[in-house]
């Protein structure tokens, strides 16, 4: 009797599994393209905020170079990342570099830093964080304009003493009740600028090489 019951019940469950699999596979198939498209647009939106379309005419998502492994530490990347190069008629305009700081108040703060090839910052956006709502989350452009203060800054403006929050004698505002988060962001942006300074030449050469290959 037991075996009969096992047999019957497994058949019932197997039918369920089969029908479910069919439904899920169909839904997956129907939504696949749309999902890929949404993901692409979401990734592109942040990039375009930093380097708007007026400044470049290449596809930012396609023009990528991996971050060399020796710099992962400096940029706080654990699994590496891609640098997007913006170009206007083939001329490199700016690089958008991923960076992560672990010195935030709760967990990692992931950002992208756009740096023009003259060394000034084109823009910074925090793309992922878990900072306290109402305090540390002001690094997010949705909550406050603070992150725009970095636009136009570079390694020499302010000088390295100035790359701190005001509380520590630097140039950048902290928030009322939250010093840790902005301090972490300021330091990581400085490190990203240093990386760019180091690796700029190679990025340009590699980028030129890529263009040549694409042209052939």
């Amino acid at each position: 009797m037991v075996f009969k019951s096992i047999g019957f019940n497994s058949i019932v469950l197997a039918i369920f599994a089969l029908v479910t699999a069919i439904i899920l596979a169909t839904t997956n198939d129907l939504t696949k393209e749309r999902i890929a498209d949404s993901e692409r647009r979401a990734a592109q939106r942040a990039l375009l905020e930093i380097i708007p379309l007026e400044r470049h005419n290449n596809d930012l998502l396609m023009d990528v170079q991996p971050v060399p492994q020796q710099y992962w530490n400096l940029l706080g990347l654990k699994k590496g990342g891609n640098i997007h190069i913006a170009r206007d008629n083939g001329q490199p305009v700016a690089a958008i570099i991923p960076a992560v700081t672990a010195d935030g108040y709760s967990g990692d703060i992931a950002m992208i830093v756009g740096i023009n090839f003259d060394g000034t910052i084109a823009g910074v956006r925090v793309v992922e964080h878990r900072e306290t709502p109402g305090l540390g989350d002001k690094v997010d452009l949705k909550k406050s304009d603070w992150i725009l203060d970095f636009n136009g800054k570079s390694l020499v403006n302010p000088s390295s003493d100035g790359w701190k929050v005001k509380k520590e004698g630097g140039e950048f505002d902290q928030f009322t009740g939250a010093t840790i988060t902005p301090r972490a962001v300021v330091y990581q942006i400085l490190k990203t600028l240093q990386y760019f300074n180091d690796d700029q030449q190679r990025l340009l050469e590699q980028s030129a090489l890529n263009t040549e290959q694409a042209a052939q």
Partner: protein
Amino acid sequence: MSEVSISEVTKNGLWTNNPALVQLLGLCPLLAVTGTVVNALGLGIATMMVLIGSNCIVSLIRNHVSDAVRLPAFVIIIAAFVTCAELLMKAYTYELYQILGIFIPLIVTNCAILGRAEAFASKHPIGYAALDGFMMGLGFLLVLVVLGAIRELFGQGTLFDNMHLLFGSMADSWRIQPFGDNYSFLVVILPPGAFLVTGLLIAGKNSIDAAIKRRADAQKDRPVKGAKRIRTTGNIA
């Protein structure tokens, strides 16, 4: 099979047996995602869709699946609907999908859903099961949205912020900011605020129920006009 009526099912889902305020089921998303109206609405709609779907299918198969394997079967059905909901949200409301994150797959473990499958859908025909799914889902959704509205309004001082995530560009002008630019009240946004506001909502519902009951009792006890009164004197042992 117990007899049910449409009005009874409706009242049950929206008020008497409201999953969020009375059964206290599905509190995890209730507390976690109700920081703003749009988050609450997104998760509420997803939960409602899953609840309607799973209730219908469970009701359809109720006479074909033996008791021994009914739970695995229900769980497969619910998981399938949640996966569909997740894929659809990813495709059409990608930003909202990113904000809600883990709480969309977690709908699988929303006890309100398995609870209704087991307690109602597996015992009633599909029409009633669908209605029950809709009403229970709506009851859950309404509580979620009210909670989201209160927390958004008193926490960050806005109402209907970011509604474009769900409704596209037509919702751009819906945002209201009644208390000025710099208003924020941290406790309400953080998880303790969710507990506090939920507690207040439950207390509010209970006090309304109590008031209704008092009135009904008063109605009952009122002497009927023209009734003869019996005069009693002395002690009645």
